[in-house]
């Protein structure tokens, strides 16, 4: 894959950091919006009457939704919006002329964007933790678990990027990919990825399906690792499933990219 051999990666990454810092006001509003929904959901889960098979207690829900904003933002990908915009306003033409693979640009932009979310995510998560710390148990945390947690975040980020990226590349043929993205990506992600309902609390059958789909690995999986509720075998099994999805979607993305470029005739300027 020639995209990993490109030179000047670090410089481009630094440039993306600067571009995103210019819009820090927007970053804040965007952040507020993304923090609010997990808080609402946490309140909702703390006031439910449970179904008999539900293994989570109040402290599990609190820890889960304490981590949701963090994981959600760190694995976030905006490629669907960015790429379809680039096709529409013609900035893709410019990107194609640069001596730099355009798709690698999206990968680096995503790193810069997600890393800068940490500026408010860390203080927020810490403040929230201070509020609820006597209700959350963290004694099970070991270095190996934290290492798995970090790897899971990176794997989740890659999975989200390639799945979103594959949908984004349909912009070559379809003018508006947001609906396609909602149905195949955002919607199922929210339903079965662990946003609305923690995957571990699903009934057996739904949990099994959620485990097969790639969406769980973008959100729920790292949190499940952090909560210490997964055995080492389950963790490895999760990594294997997620990496298989990443490989599959990388190949799909490559195929779509190649055939898309052939049909692409550029509009705008």
């Amino acid at each position, binding site marked *: 894959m020639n995209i990993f051999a490109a030179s000047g990666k670090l410089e481009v990454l630094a440039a993306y950091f600067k571009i995103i810092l210019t819009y820090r*006001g*927007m970053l804040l*509003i*965007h952040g*507020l*919006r993304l923090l*609010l*929904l997990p808080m*609402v*959901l946490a*309140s*909702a*889960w*703390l*006031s*439910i*009457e*449970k*179904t008999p098979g*539900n293994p*989570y207690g109040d402290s599990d829900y609190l820890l889960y939704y304490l981590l949701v904003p963090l994981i959600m933002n760190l694995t976030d990908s905006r490629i669907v919006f960015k790429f379809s915009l680039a096709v529409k306003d013609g900035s893709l033409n410019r990107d194609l002329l640069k001596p730099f693979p355009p798709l690698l640009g999206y990968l680096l932009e995503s790193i810069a964007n997600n890393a800068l979310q940490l500026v408010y995510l860390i203080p927020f998560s810490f403040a929230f933790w201070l509020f609820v710390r006597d209700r959350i148990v963290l004694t099970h945390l070991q270095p190996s678990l934290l290492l798995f947690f970090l790897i899971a975040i990176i794997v989740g980020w890659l999975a989200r990027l390639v799945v979103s990226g594959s949908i984004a590349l349909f912009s070559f043929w379809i*003018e*508006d990919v*947001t*609906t396609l993205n*909602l*149905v195949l990506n955002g*919607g199922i992600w*929210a*339903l*079965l990825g662990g946003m*609305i*309902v*923690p995957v571990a*609390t*699903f*009934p057996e059958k*739904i949990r099994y399906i959620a485990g097969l789909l790639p969406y769980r690995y973008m959100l729920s999986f790292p949190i499940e690792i952090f909560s210490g509720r997964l055995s080492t075998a389950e963790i490895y099994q999760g990594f294997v499933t997620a990496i298989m999805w990443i490989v599959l979607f990388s190949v799909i993305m490559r195929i779509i990219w190649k055939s898309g470029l052939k049909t692409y005739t550029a509009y705008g300027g």
Partner: protein
Amino acid sequence: MRQISIILNLWKATVIQAMEYRASFVFSIIANFFDFVFGLLQYLVFFTAAKSIAGWESDQMLVLYGVFMLVFALHFILLYPNLVAMGDMVNSGNLDLLLTKPINSQLVISFRRISLEELGSLGTAMLLLGWQIYRGIIVFDVGNFALFAVSMISSLLLVYCVFLLLISLAVIMERLDNMSQLLWSLFALCRYPNDIYPDRIRYAFISFLPVAFIATVPASVLLGRSDSAIVWQGFVLAAAAVLFCTWLWQRAIKAYTSAGG
């Protein structure tokens, strides 16, 4: 009367404009319908792991969702396009032009445009509520329905107040960028009943941050779980808020020294 006919003519113009891009219009209706369906699925998924939320069972939550979508769709049809246009108006200087016209500026800026794309959600929300009446979850009762009408008016007035706050801010700060996201955050707070929040927040939401009156109160009225006192409290709050925000808007316009050109 003249003001109303001007607004109606402006609406006609925006509808004609939207119809020029018919395929894109149909497409947005489909997209919004999917939004509605996914919102509905969220509740179904939620209730695979929960029996009830703060005393609200799944059928009652569907009523809440119906009411929520009703308010959301109405806001999207009537207010949202105007909010989007507002950011543009300040930057381009079109606001100056509009202010010189012999017509109530607040009225024109608030209701200049209309977007019919959410008609699908509006229809589906009504179908959902109708279905709940048919199933007997909502009991038909004239007194309750009248109260519901009052609470819906308060709810829409409150949403309008947030709209006024945002456009006043746009005039003061001379930019709007992604302020509309703040409005969407407000809606995120209304998707679940007000009873889920801790005591202090719940108190805030029925007093100085009247979030509860947007969806929870109208839905409880429909379900016959709410007394009339809270409905009238909401109405008074909404009326006071509209007066205050109108005053704020007038202050903002007075201090406005034009931007762009």
